[in-house]
């Protein structure tokens, strides 16, 4: 479970202050698939970064799986990221110098798994995204959709509770976007909680919950649970 209470985030640069999140409140339950929409600059990425422990917040309360995130130091946040969170980025962020196998290996090394365990997890997750036959390929030898699948395999390899995705289909054509979306839905069905920022209204509708961020606030919360309807 992820609970944010009155989270504020103020970016302070030399001469300007940006209030990116204002009294942001949100509770994400196990198994949710949440899509986050909102205008550019409204604070979606800021929210996702804070939720994924990439950024700290100015004030408020944030607990992740019962743990008070505000009290963690950089090391603690890094470890928690590695254990509980998987990230998928708009531009895939694969390491260009490493082949697919080694790319998926990266977070597993940080966790400290032994070689056998890592190999098993890498193979299983590349299999899961349908790319087990290309383990020795470099990212540059793949299409965008395939690269994003590898990124998803990498995010899942550590068995995270939460998968956070910032416009994961933003750099893909619609066909590839559909494929990635289907994969995310499948992963969600298998139990991983997903929070996905997207510009695509149609994809957003496919989530179990949709929230909208405006001016740093959760402006509208459609508690339209598909599971509830279905």
């Amino acid at each position, binding site marked *: 479970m992820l609970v944010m209470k009155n989270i504020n985030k103020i970016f302070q640069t030399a001469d300007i202050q940006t209030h990116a999140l204002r009294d942001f409140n949100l509770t994400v339950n196990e198994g949710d698939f949440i899509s986050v929409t909102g205008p550019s600059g409204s604070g979606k990425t800021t929210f996702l970064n804070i939720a994924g*422990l990439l*950024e700290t917040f100015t004030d408020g309360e944030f607990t992740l799986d019962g743990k008070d995130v505000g009290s963690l130091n950089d090391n603690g946040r*890094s470890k928690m990221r590695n254990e509980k969170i998987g*990230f998928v*980025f708009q531009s895939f*962020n694969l*390491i260009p110098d490493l*082949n697919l196998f080694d790319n998926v290996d990266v*977070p597993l090394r*940080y966790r400290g798994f032994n070689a056998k365990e890592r190999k098993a997890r890498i193979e299983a997750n590349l299999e899961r995204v349908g790319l087990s036959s290309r383990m020795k390929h470099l990212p540059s030898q793949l299409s965008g959709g395939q690269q994003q699948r590898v990124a998803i395999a990498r995010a899942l390899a550590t068995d995270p509770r939460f998968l956070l995705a910032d416009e994961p289909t933003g750099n893909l054509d619609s066909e590839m976007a559909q494929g990635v979306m289907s994969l995310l839905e499948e992963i969600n069905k298998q139990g991983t909680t997903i929070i996905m920022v997207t510009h695509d209204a149609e994809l957003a509708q496919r989530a179990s919950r949709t929230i909208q961020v405006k001016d740093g606030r959760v402006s509208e919360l459609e508690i339209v649970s598909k599971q509830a309807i279905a």
Partner: protein
Amino acid sequence: MLETGLIFRALMRNKIGALLIALQIALTLAIMVNAIFMIQDRNQQMSRASGLDEANTFYLTNTIFGDNYNKQVNLQTDLHAIRNTPGIVDAIQINAIPLSGGGWSMSLQHEPGDDKDTIGSALYMVDEHGINSLGVELIAGQNFTAQDIQWRESGSTKWPPKTIITQAFAEQLYPDNWRSAIGKTFYISQTQPMQIIGVMKALQAPWNGWSGVERSMLVPFHMDSKNSRYFIRTEPGRRDEMMPIIEKLLAESNKERIIRRVSTVEETRQRSYQRHNATNKILMTVIITLTLITGFGIVGLAIFSINRRTKQIGTRRALGATQWQIMRYFMMENLLISTVGVVIGSIGAVALNYWLVKTFNLSPISVELVLFGVIALFVVGQLAVLYPARRAAMIPPATATRTI
């Protein structure tokens, strides 16, 4: 978990920069190790004892210009006066000064004749006060007596029948047992016999670069010359005080001569090794400069590659890397580059040394020295990469989502 394999594979995709730095490390190692070796070689040469009581000895040149001047009588008078001055231990007339760069050498041989093997030695003409004035140590046999001292006319080719030689010379003449040299005869000027009556511990030749620098002999001669050198030993710590006193004593006792070039043996040593010291300084500067350039090269390459990989580093942080794991990545990367560098460098160092040995007749380099260079460059590499690695560790995780 160490990620050596991943670092290595990533490195192999960006070979050029890494390889250039590795080669720079290799070059630095090869030059550093050989330069240190050359410095050590010189330091070792400079640390050899001359055999003299260097701190308490000085010498001067006595030049006579008067015509009615009994050189033989005057030499005795001079030496007598100097020896009897309070503060003076002893004094002699001598033909050459050790380490000064100028002097005599003669070829000696076991058998008389003009087709025999010879061995060279520096030659010092002194009287029975020679041992005491120079401050050398007689370790076997005996000193000359007053009766042994002969007058040598300038240009004469006659030699006295006795000599005292250094241990190093005795060892060369009688490798089995240098002590057996006492009482033995060798030949000078091919046919004139000379008997070894004493062995001194050490007395260096005037030429510090000569391979036979430790071979010297004393010959019991006074020189009948208008131009001669006096070598004077003072009581410990009184040299500087006695130098002007002796100069004044000689100058005032006889107006038909001049006293010139009063200098200490320490000055002579310094002048003798001026080139050595200068060369060592240059080599040291080369070592430091090269090391700094390599260090900065490592810093530069690391900063460049970190700037290029900002987003990747942010992504690694987002995937759970701690700051220390990021730092360690770049330190490990440097270690890999350095390893390639020192392997090539060690081969280069030995090859360069091999060439130096062949060209300049140096001795071969020691394994310890190469090992020292290897460790030094590993340390330099790790220190150089510390700051860039620290900067990489400071790259915020949000870079992963904030940059395109």
